[in-house]
């Protein structure tokens, strides 16, 4: 009896691998070619593109792993099923050193490759991938000294933006120039928020008393969605607005218009600063 059964083992293994190969061969091209172009956050900026690539690669890598496990399970359900009411014991297999070692080595290699690749794209490949890096960024893009600084100020429940190179101009809507490296300096004057510019691929917590820097380099003009990604109280869901990537000339025109529009208010604003002393706390109603 054991002879017959053990003679069949390799067949099970080969069948499982076969099914898995077929499914993977179907799934991976579908993921890369069909699903991939829809994965967030798009290709409006270099940083967004790096996140898109990460998402596509990750999906294409993890789906085959999931398929392998699911195929093993489902195959066992179908083939090793005990029908009827009888209770019979299976073969007393307690482990297999080779199989265990193989699994450990395989998963370790995948994990290490993921971590190395993730660190590389984060630091060298995409300069922080649009994430907030704190007051002194470690992953700096070329020419970061000449990046256009744009300050993002979170407060309950509104975003405002300041342009220190344009006299500390403060606006309620955000525009950035195309093909120019922009450094967002995100801060807050009350509780913690998180500045999320979806299509730009930017997310950086707005923390009171902290200047959180995130770089972005836009390739395309158009609108992008701004939201708050850290719960900040009652109207957290309403801290949403549209921002724009404008061509250089349009951006200059926009700045000029914003300056005249806000001229009357500018006199009352505090001087531009990297952080603002948060207002003393008050219990909100």
């Amino acid at each position, binding site marked *: 009896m054991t002879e017959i059964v053990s003679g069949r083992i390799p067949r099970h293994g080969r069948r499982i691998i076969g099914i898995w190969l077929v499914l993977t061969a179907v799934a991976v091209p579908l993921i890369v070619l069909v699903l991939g172009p829809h994965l967030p956050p798009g290709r409006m900026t270099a940083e967004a593109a790096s996140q898109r690539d990460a998402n596509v690669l990750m999906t294409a890598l993890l789906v085959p792993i*999931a398929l392998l496990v699911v195929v093993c399970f489902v195959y066992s*359900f179908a083939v090793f099923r005990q029908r009827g009411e009888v209770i019979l014991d*299976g073969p007393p297999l307690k482990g297999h050193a080779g199989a265990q070692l193989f699994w450990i080595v395989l998963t370790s290699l995948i994990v290490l490759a993921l971590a190395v690749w993730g660190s590389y794209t984060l630091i060298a490949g995409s300069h922080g991938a649009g994430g907030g890096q704190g007051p002194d960024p470690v992953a700096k893009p070329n020419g970061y000294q000449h990046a256009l600084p744009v300050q993002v100020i979170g407060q309950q429940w509104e975003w405002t933006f300041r342009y220190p190179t344009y006299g500390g101009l403060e606006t309620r809507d955000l525009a950035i120039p195309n093909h120019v490296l922009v450094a967002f300096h995100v801060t807050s004057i009350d509780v*913690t928020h998180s500045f999320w510019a979806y299509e730009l691929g930017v997310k950086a917590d707005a923390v*009171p008393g902290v200047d959180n*820097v995130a770089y972005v380099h836009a390739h395309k003009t158009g609108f992008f969605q701004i939201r708050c990604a850290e719960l900040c*109280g009652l109207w957290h869901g309403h801290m949403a607005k549209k921002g724009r990537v404008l061509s250089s000339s349009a951006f200059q025109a926009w700045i000029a218009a914003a300056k005249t529009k806000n001229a009357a208010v500018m006199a009352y604003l505090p001087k531009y600063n990297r952080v603002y002393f*948060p207002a003393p*706390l008050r219990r*909100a109603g």
Partner: protein
Amino acid sequence: MSATAIAVRPPVWRRVIGFNMLTGLALGISGWFLGGWIGGQMAVGHDYLLGTDQNDVGIFMGYLFAIIGWLVGLGFANYPIGRLLGRSPTLREHETAGWTRYFKMCTDHKVVGIQYLFGVGIFFFIGGLNAMLMRTELLRPVERPWPAGQYLTLVSLHGTMMIMMTSAFILGPFGNYFVPLMIGARRMAFPRIEALTFWLVPAAGLILMSAIAFGGIATGWTGYSPLADEGRAGMDAYVTAFILIAISLTLVGLNLLVTILTMRAPGLTWTRLPIFVWGVLATSVLMVLAAPVLVATMTMVLMDRAANTSFFLASAGGSQYLYQNLFWFFGHPEVYILALPGFGIVLEILPVFARKPLWGYRLAVAGMLGVTLLSFMVWQHHLFVSGMNAGLRPFYMLTTELISIPTGFIFLNAIGTLWRARIRFTVPMLFALAFFFNFLIGGLSGVFLSDVPSDVTTHGSYFVMAHFHYTIMGGLVFAFFGAVYYWLPKMLGVTLNETLAKIHFWMMFVFFNLTFFPLFAAGFLDMPRRVSTYAPHLQVLNDFVSASAFMLGFSMLIFIANLVWSLVFARVPALANPWASRGLEWQLPTPVPTENFERIPVITSGPYEYGVAGAPPVADFTPAALPAAGS
């Protein structure tokens, strides 16, 4: 030995009046008013009151005295006072029999297990009702029918309640009930502490719910300062409840840890220990090390709110990074406090219905211990975009991804155990297998979150929300129901209706996935967490999710119906060992005798020796030589 003492049943009034839950409630409510008054006296005239329209000192003192009243009313002061008066020490556990003992302090681990099962189950149900109300709100992209503040309180109550209650979801009922039975002990190491851990749970749950009366909770379950300092008095409830639960979890962990380390029956070597007990052991280590950090953190919030300190207030020199680090230093191990017991349960169930030894036992143990160790080294993955320590991100990316190696072991164990097995698809087995499917998706989606470029997209979005529901609800809750169907016959002595159970399983499995899988897409499509307003073009998606969520909720009603039907009406007595399991707990009669084992058994073989030719029975119940003391 003391069986004769119960012979005379006390009159009914004697069972209602005395140290029990009713008295506890009465004293607790009186304590609330007394404490409130004392706190008022303390705070009067202090300038901190100027910044607020409410007196946090009074509220905290109210809760403190309410807790003291609750515990005194339940009789937790009797023993220490008795000792002070010079009475001899007793474990008065045989004082009462009958159903009233479930409403009292009781030091029998089997009673505590059932108290936990129903206590935690009720709060889980309330948390689930909150979820239904939330999904009602999300049917439309505007704040209707509940206003924004109410929705936020619902999110916070649901999240906090679920996290608090599911932390003890398996260790509470099944750890307390079955660990002594599985290791051949007559009780837990600290029976009085065991009773305390349970009775802190309803106190915490009720206090948390009292937040509704005090302006709600605006912070979600994570309670980030400075938002928490800004919140109204409902935050005081959140802080107090979390402190209570954290104390309870620490003690649960300590008790189980000591029990497993010191009270195993002779012959129960580490390689014969049931894998569930290993899971409990690993979880206990996490609880003992992580939960006290939460007590400290919450105490700091309490001080910030009531005593004018500023640990977390940037406006007075504090830092919210301190809060986030402290919170997640607890919070990430907490995630594994929720995962590891599930691993233990499913690996315990699998061999029984595959009729094969657990494949790769040592690997499973190594996996659990590996997760335990690594889980303390990953917490800053919650702060990837916070602007703190950006240089450390590759390190935390690496450690987070490393955790998937030991977690992967558990999957290999399952695949190996099913290999050439004789699988029977009983209800516990179905839940255990569903666990693997759900946890696979939950775990792999976690790999996205561990990769910083991906996390920049998904952090704070519904993707995260889908991810942790897959691991907690799809993992822990499915494992919980697996355990319920597997062990309830032993605990309650009745057989559950199998048809209803299968309907429950299939509805829960299908609608769970229909509810939460689309939410990955919602996150990818730019929907942040914790919002009652969302982009109108996501309404179809959200309506679909809500509809499935209601069906998911309905499947829970089927379970409850089954429980009530089987327990109250059908009452089909359970066999002593309906699954033909080799587990030590199944070799005992049903109902389990008060003393569990007449004699401490001698363990002669491992619990998973299915099909092993000539394997001896799992234990010798009438050992010739009396074992050494230690029970």
